[in-house]
């Protein structure tokens, strides 16, 4: 369903939803039947890419760095009058909902009719297909957690959809032993702003990131020891862009042969780094590792991720 492009947020009335175009998020927040004892206490308000600033201000740019189509917000109340704010974010198919969900995943991982969810301190965040549902209350406790779970479940059933992870993320997961991943450090994103929020390379966009690049960043404990590494894999629209990014990074941190696990180098401060890319448009970077061994193990993982794409039609979807 097409999302109308709006200059200001729109209050969605039931009659409007049933008679004219409405986003799936708006439909869900109007038509979903809440658990017993709960009722909607206001009208749904929809924001698009232009008007989302009115709701999130500075935070809007995070969502705009992904393929956000719409955000719909509505409040409901329970038997004890506890207000719960419910937000439904809709993204274009292609896996961006995975990136938004992965931005912060620390907390309990409840089961329910969603693809993934995390709960903590009165906030339930769930990903269902290309949608993110956030249900939040200022209060806490087991009863409220159950209520949030019930509200989010009803919405996710209504929003039921399928949106597999982006190909790059799926390949990274296939090549990394989950036991080597530091908790809550796996990220998927596109832009320099997002990279800077996870790992600061500098003022310049050295890696040439844009809305057209896919990136996976993860903290690893490669091998048996406690040594850590932070690694990044970026997929560019064209191989020449990956090569140019590799050259800029090598110039910034010191010349380094690429694509060979035997070649890692020490940066100022003693941390190790390295780069690898195969014959496609993927570039893997060990941004920093505590030890040479951790850097070499990480570089081998990056090469494996790059090689998965070769001759395999590196399309966007898994």
């Amino acid at each position: 369903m097409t999302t109308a492009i709006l200059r200001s947020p729109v209050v969605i009335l039931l009659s409007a939803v049933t008679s004219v175009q409405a986003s799936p998020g708006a439909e869900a927040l109007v038509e979903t039947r809440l658990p017993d004892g709960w009722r909607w206490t206001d009208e749904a308000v929809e924001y698009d890419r232009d008007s989302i600033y009115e709701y999130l201000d500075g935070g809007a740019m995070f969502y705009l760095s992904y393929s956000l189509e719409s955000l719909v917000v509505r409040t409901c109340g329970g038997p004890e009058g506890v207000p719960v704010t419910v937000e439904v974010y809709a993204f274009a198919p292609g896996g961006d909902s995975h990136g938004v969900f992965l931005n912060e995943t620390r907390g309990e991982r409840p089961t329910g009719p969603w693809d993934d969810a995390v709960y903590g301190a009165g906030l339930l965040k769930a990903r269902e297909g290309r949608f993110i549902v956030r249900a939040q209350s200022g209060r806490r406790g087991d009863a409220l957690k159950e209520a949030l779970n019930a509200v989010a479940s009803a919405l996710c059933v209504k929003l039921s959809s399928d949106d597999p992870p982006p190909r790059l993320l799926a390949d990274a997961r296939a090549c990394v032993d989950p036991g080597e991943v530091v908790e809550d450090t796996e990220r998927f994103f596109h832009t320099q702003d997002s990279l800077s929020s996870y790992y600061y390379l500098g003022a310049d966009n050295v890696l040439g990131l844009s809305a057209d690049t896919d990136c996976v960043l993860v903290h690893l404990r490669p091998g048996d020891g406690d040594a850590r590494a932070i690694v990044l894999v970026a997929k560019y629209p064209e191989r020449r862009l990956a090569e140019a990014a590799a050259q800029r990074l090598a110039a910034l941190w010191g010349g380094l042969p690429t694509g060979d696990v035997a070649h890692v180098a020490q940066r100022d401060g003693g941390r190790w780094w390295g780069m690898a890319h195969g014959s496609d448009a993927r570039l893997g970077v060990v941004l920093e590792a505590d030890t040479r061994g951790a850097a070499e193990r990480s570089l081998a993982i990056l090469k494996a991720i790059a090689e998965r794409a070769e001759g395999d039609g590196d399309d966007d979807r898994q």
Partner: protein
Amino acid sequence: MTGSEQHDGRMNRRSFLARSTAGALGAAMGARARAQGQVRSRVVVARDEQAVSGDQVDADRVAAMLSKAMAALFGKPASDAWKGLFTVEDTVGIKSTVMMNPVHPELLFAIHAALTEHVGIEDARVRVWDRNRGGVGRAELATMPRSLSYHDDYIVDMVHESTALINCPSLKRHWLAGIGGAVKNWCGAVRGINPMDNGEAVFKFHGDSCAQMGMLNALPPIRERCRLIVIDALTPCHGPGPQVNPADLWAYGGLIVSTDPVAADVVGAQILEAKLEEINGRPTPLTPPTRHLQVADAEYGLGCSDAAAIEVVRV
């Protein structure tokens, strides 16, 4: 403001650069002070862990913390400190924060009480606002029922109607700027920072982790009128954002008080980084780094970004 600017009420980057001359002089003076080993700025961190319990904030304890902080900052009894900073004729605008870890109303009430009781300012001359919502007098501090408008220079009218300002943000990480604190708080005093405002942003600071954020604090009506910074660190947020995850709030029970917005933010960043190190078990610098604090110091002369040149007083 130049004649042409007065005519159309707008500012451009050139006029900002022209005005930054004063800031550069200030920065140079700061560099000399550093070279002589002088402390450039004092920041008071007041703590009372009992001020916050669960979702409850103890208003009396917050007021007591604020009083202790003012006394420590100015080296005199709190009532004298307030009287030395404001006069009974002042109209005081408090720039609060309502989005993403809002400022606790108990702190706003404590500031209001100090202004009315110690200085003698009339209730209706103490105002609070964030973005285009504001309140006048104690009864409206928490609710901010009034809709505000913006002057031709893109600054909210509340600034122009005030003779003195108090910068009162909350402490949090910010996914674009590293820290949301005093320097960033002025985003809620202007329009024209986002593309939605008139189609294109007037204040272009988002590049390089919002490095030029200080341009807002450097706007003359703000810079010249802001006399005090009170950062609400009762329940700071250490999470990455962009939205606040309540699981990332912790009961620090603190206030950060200074007349230097940059130094106050430097100390706030140290508090956030200490918490992140405690959580992660290893040093965890803020990402992105707080570039805008160094630029606010070096280019705009707004305050001290050198931690070694900041005197931190803990009470």
